[in-house]
């Protein structure tokens, strides 16, 4: 084969290969092939275990093991036992309270970070992010020092004469402790989506509203919130759902006051009642899904600006 014929042949093969790759990319396999590793990973670490838990949750509990057969007993027990009802209710309201507190704290922070700019803005971003670099357990022990009966906060209050030692507020091993700890952990998840969306809202719009006679509150509700809704809704949703499912902070700061994730873990580990723990897990997942779907519905009904 001469040099020239070889080159021509090479080009022909090369052209056919490129055409083949192009054609392959157009096929279904080609399009989804690139997604395959991610899909496989999600299937292995999420869908598969969840499916197992779903099936366990309908199996009877049989002397420390997962029994054979189908039963709704675990769900009935979860919904009819006052202890579990209360725990479920507590879990949801703690998540709601954390979300509300973080919105009230987070929006002004995000607003200041965006509008002040300069070193103030940078400081806010760094101060909001910094706690993420410290492990959850370490952070919770930090809260121990601050919140416990004779901790920094209470001893300061007593020293200042604000409260007497007997009347010092109980800030740890109850709902208050969980809410404080979670609000701290979740704050960046509220602040950053709002920072992102506020960057897209020109400051002039607020000035225009003000010059048209709107006070700060009206400017906030009629101009800022509607335009910031995509960021606010993302922040609210992430904060609520992650708070709902969080374990470490409530386990450490809640003491005897439990939330569902803590109960689930204890049921799995100490009583080995896997079917009941599975049912509780599914209930928690269902609550989160209901909230997400309902929330999206409400947002899409709101005029003009789209949801998440």
């Amino acid at each position: 084969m001469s040099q020239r014929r070889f080159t021509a042949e090479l080009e022909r093969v090369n052209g056919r290969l490129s055409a083949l790759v192009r054609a392959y990319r157009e096929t279904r396999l080609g399009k989804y092939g690139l997604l395959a590793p991610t899909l496989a990973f999600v299937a292995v670490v999420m869908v598969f275990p969840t499916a197992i838990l779903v099936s366990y949750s309908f199996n009877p509990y049989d002397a420390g093991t997962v029994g054979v057969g189908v039963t709704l007993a675990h769900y009935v027990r979860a919904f009819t036992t006052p202890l579990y009802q209360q725990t479920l209710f507590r879990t949801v309201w703690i998540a709601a309270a954390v979300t509300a507190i973080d919105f009230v704290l987070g929006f002004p922070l995000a607003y200041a970070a965006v509008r002040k700019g300069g070193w103030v803005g940078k400081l806010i971003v760094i101060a909001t992010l910094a706690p993420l670099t410290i492990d959850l357990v370490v952070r919770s022990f930090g809260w121990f020092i601050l919140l416990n009966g004779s901790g920094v906060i209470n001893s300061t209050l007593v020293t200042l004469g604000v409260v007497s030692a007997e009347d010092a507020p109980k800030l740890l091993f109850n709902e208050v402790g969980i809410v404080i700890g979670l609000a701290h952990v979740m704050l960046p998840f509220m602040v950053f989506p709002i920072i992102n969306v506020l960057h897209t809202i020109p400051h002039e719009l607020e000035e225009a509203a003000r010059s048209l006679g709107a006070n700060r509150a009206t400017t906030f509700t009629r101009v800022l919130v509607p335009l910031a809704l995509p960021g606010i809704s993302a922040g609210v949703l992430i904060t609520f759902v992650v708070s709902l499912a969080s374990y470490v902070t409530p386990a450490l700061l809640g003491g005897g006051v439990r939330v569902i994730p803590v109960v689930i873990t204890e049921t799995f580990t100490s009583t080995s009642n896997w079917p009941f723990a599975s049912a509780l897990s599914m209930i928690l997942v269902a609550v989160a899904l209901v909230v997400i779907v309902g929330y999206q519905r409400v947002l899409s009904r709101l005029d003009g600006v789209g949801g998440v």
Partner: protein
Amino acid sequence: MQRAAGTGVAIEYEDVTKTFGDVTAVDGVSFAVEDGELLALLGPSGSGKTTTLRMLAGFETPTSGTISLAGDDVTRVPTHKRDTGMVFQDYALFPHMTVGENVAFGLERQGVPADEARERIEEVLALVDLAGFADRDPKTLSGGQQQRVATARAIAIEPEVLLMDEPLGALDKRLRDQLEVELTEIQADLGITTLYVTHNQEEALTIADRIAVMNDGRIEQIASPMEVYEEPATEFVADFIGDTNFLEGDLHEAADGRVVLETTTGELEVNAGTAPADGGGRVFVRPEKLTAHDPATTTATQNTLPGHVDRRLFLGSKVRYFVDVDGRQVVVDESNRHASSIHDVGDEVTLAWSVQDTRLASG
């Protein structure tokens, strides 16, 4: 909505200063705007014109001095309690509201009943030539249309003063010229006192009743467009507005009391009462005041300078010559009256102009 012009002072700045850190943006500015008047704040960027305007809107608080609106001191009054309507360079229309809702926003704040508000919205939209646009999404409108919506929104609340911050700055030249005329017609029709910020001198000359020329946070001159152009108070104003030829030499008073400028190419008489004591100050003449003619036909009553045409720009209705006068360039604009009398590059010419147009740029 009609208001009589010139019946009193609508806006008054008294020794207003604004500093940001160690930068003085506005430096002891004082001026007043008559009822119904359109005052243009003209200056290069960084001259303090926008800050001056924003202090009246209440977006910035003066470091010192007072600002009055219709006789009331509003220096510390919050924005939403001031009777001002603002038009921004980038329109600042609320993107989540229709055109009608944008206009309605201010009316709702004033508590105007819904049916009356609806009427007013149609009225102001018709005024800016956008009748029937109330249900449109502002994002679908052109820049010129958006700015007209913004203007309608600002005048719908019938403010004491209208504040416009480079309102035509984001538009292209043709649209700017058209809107310039429309905005001034609306302003004059309503007789609404207007403070108008621009860096565009042509725009200011066209639309303003008076122009305040700003530089370095101070007002250099505040006068009618014609006066600012013809009798600039400072060298900065002479240079910033219009094209200018500055002439240098020795300034002194002649024996007969005339002020003369001794140049390397002859003596020029200056339209000034007295020469500055220190002999400083420059003399200037606008390009269109000069004629370039054949050296043989000089008249004795005018100022003249000899030179030769260095470069020529044919601009259709006029011809611009760059004339070399003893190594110094002088710009001459002549209207194209007779194509046959246009000089060629290299021609020897005599520049002539009246003493009256030979002015001292004091300051």
